[in-house]
């Protein structure tokens, strides 16, 4: 577990990937993800779009650039910050490979 990231240590350089043992189904644009370790999670529509993009090859930085192309009116730094926040949230609930969610009962 030594090379596991903490969610708060995720940066835009990370190419996130769902854990291999999670199962996902999409309904009305929202993903429902089951992890044997942390149970069932409902992702909102934005998190669901990101979830689909997490292939282990594409970095958050590259995803942020794509988002800037799509949402030309949005502040690029704001988009990057939101992307990072969503990814850290997914890491905290134990859905990302190589990210240790830590103890959910512990602050920080």
């Amino acid at each position, binding site marked *: 577990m030594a090379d596991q990231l903490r969610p708060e240590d995720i940066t835009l350089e990370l190419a996130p990937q769902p854990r291999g043992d999670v*199962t996902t*189904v999409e*309904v*009305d644009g*929202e993903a429902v993800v*089951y992890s*044997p370790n942390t149970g*069932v*999670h*409902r992702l909102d529509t934005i998190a669901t779009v990101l979830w689909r993009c997490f292939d282990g090859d594409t970095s958050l930085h590259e995803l942020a650039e794509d988002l800037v192309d799509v949402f030309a009116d949005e502040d690029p730094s704001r988009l990057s910050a939101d992307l990072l926040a969503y990814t850290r949230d997914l890491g905290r609930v134990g859905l990302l490979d190589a990210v240790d969610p830590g103890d959910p009962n512990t602050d920080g």
Partner: protein
Amino acid sequence: MTARTRSADPKTLLVPPPRSRALRTGRFRALGHDFAVRTPDAALTGYLNKTFGALAAPGKASGEYLLRSVRTRGGRRWETRYGDERVTVTAEPSMALAMLLWHVNREAVARTPGLVRVHAAVASLDGTAVMLPAPMESGKTTLVAGLVRSGLDYLSDEIAALDPATLTVRAYPKALSVDPGSWTALADLEPRVDPAVAGWLPEQWQLPATAIRQDAVAEVAQPRVVVFPRYEPGAATQLDRLPRAEAVVRLVQSTFRFEEEPHRDLEALGRLARDCECYELVMSDLETACALVLETLSSRVRR
């Protein structure tokens, strides 16, 4: 004189088991659980034949429960066994029977691995079903009893057994287990019980659906509405739409042994939610709750 046999438990001296064929019930099938019950009491055998009547099947059961009296150093006790498994030994015959009923449900889940088993009541209208998933004490048995009284067909008050390929629900039409808190709302359905078995009965009605309406039991149905009921005394009874993804989350949380086949079950529950309208029902008044569910289900049947 026949010597008494001694069980594996040295503290327990067994009373010889009953020999009369009249003390063995017929064969029942609770989904994949195939059983009969041997009892020390002809009246109890009759009661169980009636209670499990909707599960009756021809032929010989592959498993057998035994309800019997045992003498221990602490006095007379009541034992429930399933084959070699001792389910319980208790001072109260009503607890022995309650544990048998509990065990039947447990085994129905355990012995039906090919189906997605949701903790839910199910009723149907013209083959179109409403599923009512909820934890214990949420009012699902009361609601399904009210719906059957209102004319719907009955599939279960405990397990919605979904075929993952077709998403049809296979009936598990056990007797409805009605707790005392619902006896007033369902007073007209109070079962008539032979006084000879009164001492065996837990403080819970076992109400065969056929006692509500002779033709009430359906074999299979296609769910088109999912309603998550929650009994809340004093609250306004209302039905609110639930996002389908939230319905999937709640269905997962209501599915027995989900962790055994998570991919299959999640995929099936996702398709189920896409096929259904999903609601949350807060209820304090049974009549209003039934009317709301009936109206919603009827609109799906008409489509």
